[in-house]
């Protein structure tokens, strides 16, 4: 479908890749809604995927008592809602991640504060 307008109506999207220093990646931790929403981060495409769990996410999710219990080898990843198996040694780009991709992860056995999914 298309917008109905009185005159030509086409604008450059405000969030094209070139407008950012690095591609945006969205990351969510399922069943841990103590963090109200997934997060948004500009991440250099060369960042190794494994650095997420090791370096990026601890500062973000470390507040949660479940975070320290995560076994990163058992984590289930989803990309655009589909199960997905990234290679931790490869970069974000080599794992196929592009500007504005959304990924989320599940941590089996961990279901939030008193099992509340928070």
């Amino acid at each position, binding site marked *: *479908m298309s917008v109905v307008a009185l005159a030509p109506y086409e604008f450059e999207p405000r969030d094209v890749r070139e407008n950012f220093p690095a591609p945006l990646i969205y990351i969510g931790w399922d069943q841990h809604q*103590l963090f109200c929403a997934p997060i948004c981060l500009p991440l250099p495409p060369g960042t190794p995927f494994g650095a997420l769990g090791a370096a990026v996410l601890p500062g973000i999710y470390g507040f949660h008592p479940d975070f320290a219990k995560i076994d990163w080898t058992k984590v289930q990843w989803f990309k655009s809602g589909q199960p997905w198996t990234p290679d931790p040694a490869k970069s974000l780009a080599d794992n196929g991640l592009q500007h504005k991709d959304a990924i989320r992860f599940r941590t089996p056995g961990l279901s939030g504060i008193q099992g509340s999914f928070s």
Partner: protein
Amino acid sequence: MDTRVTSKKLGLKERYAAMTRGLGWETTYQPMDKVFPYDKYEGIKIHDWDKWQDPFRLTMEAYWKYQGEKEKKLYAVIEAFAQNNGQLGVTDARYINALKIFIQGVTPLEYYAHRGFAHVGRQFTGEGARVAAQMQSVDELRHYQTETHAISHYNKHFNGMHHSNHWFDRVWYLSVPKSFFEDACTGGPFEFLTAVSFSFEYVLTNLLFVPFMSGAANNGDMSTVTFGFSAQSDESRHMTLGIECIKFLLEQDPDNVPIVQRWIDKWFWRGYRLLSIVAMMQDYMLPKRVMSWKEAWEMYAEESGGALFKDLARYGIREPAGWKQACEGKAHISHQTWNAFYNYNAAAPIHTWVPSDEELNWLSEKYPESFDQYYRPRLEHFREQQQAGNRFYSKTLPMLCNTCQIPMIFTEEGDASQICYRESDYKAYKYHFCSDHCKSIFDHEPEKYVQSWLPVHQVYQGNCFKPGTDPTAEGFDPLMAVLDFYEMNVGRDNFDFEGSEDQKNFAAWKGDTK
């Protein structure tokens, strides 16, 4: 002289017709399409503007008279309130945060409505519709101004209100109401009317005003009660315009029905999302509670909305596409929204807190199906951590819905354990949404929503720092730079209520030294 028989006094309807639609004419020196260029392109077909039913036939004489009376009463209360330091009469300084939400997020919408109705009040070809819209335009200006005046006294004594209009154009959560109303104002005149007069004023406005006003009444805030009820008396005129315009559009041509249905679907959902913040205010910010959001939703949306859509069925209009999801959400959205503000309170010029035990119990009682299972444990955990000196503030920006612009806090229908993610591909990029309905709004008009000024993305683009800021400088703190751009007083406008200046001042004024 006696040849002039005094003519029969005209009735209200005829008199009003002479006072309004009798004034217009078909232009001939300039083509009508050039004089009224904007009310055709949306595809709405109008065959006979004379079928427009004027809602409440107020002439300017009567308008001035009754509105003047209302204003006299209202300003007497506002003045007395200020003279007597009425702010001391509120239940608790936490209550003031409801007013902060109001002046930051609602008052600017009155302003947009004012300008939007001036626009359609100029552009509709039908004179009756123009006059109704113009009257609403000037009413909405009234609301902007009376709210600004009534809250002015609070602004002198509490934080979080002093730069409300500046924040409205910049601060992350205020892009939700801002984008809502700009979406309506940038649509065509008929969409604007369907969005604002019908979907918002008629279907949802009771959910905005009644919770705020009864909340104010229960929490000792006479000033707000008075401006609220006074504004609401105009609102009933506006609601009448809303329902008359829908009826008019639907009766003019069957081809209008699917267009109007799509607008109702869109604007019901956008309005519902906008009201998340009211839901949160109602369940969390009122020290003395009136009714829960869920109860208000049942009373004002489910009951009267149900009656309305049953009635409109004869035109082939069904209830809005998101109706069922909205009704399901009544058990969740206030808790989910409060959590967003609790998380991001470092970047929001209001205060949040963990409710007291008594308040938590009230929420458990009002939300037996959701609160204990999903929401109470994390609030108690937050409290525990806070007491241990570890108050949680999220410092990483959230992912936003590209349509409603709310952080992606909402869960799947029927599964409150799972955040709802939806996405669309449009040209080279992905766009993300909090729900099926926000996605379908985008899919219908992608050219519009690729323009969304998403605050999170704008920060990352470097557009939310003051000129001269150097993000490469050593020790650069992006959050502080953004708060500087917002012109927030860090430590006074934001952070937890516990320990805030508002809390201390209020206690001192009340002579409460504990």
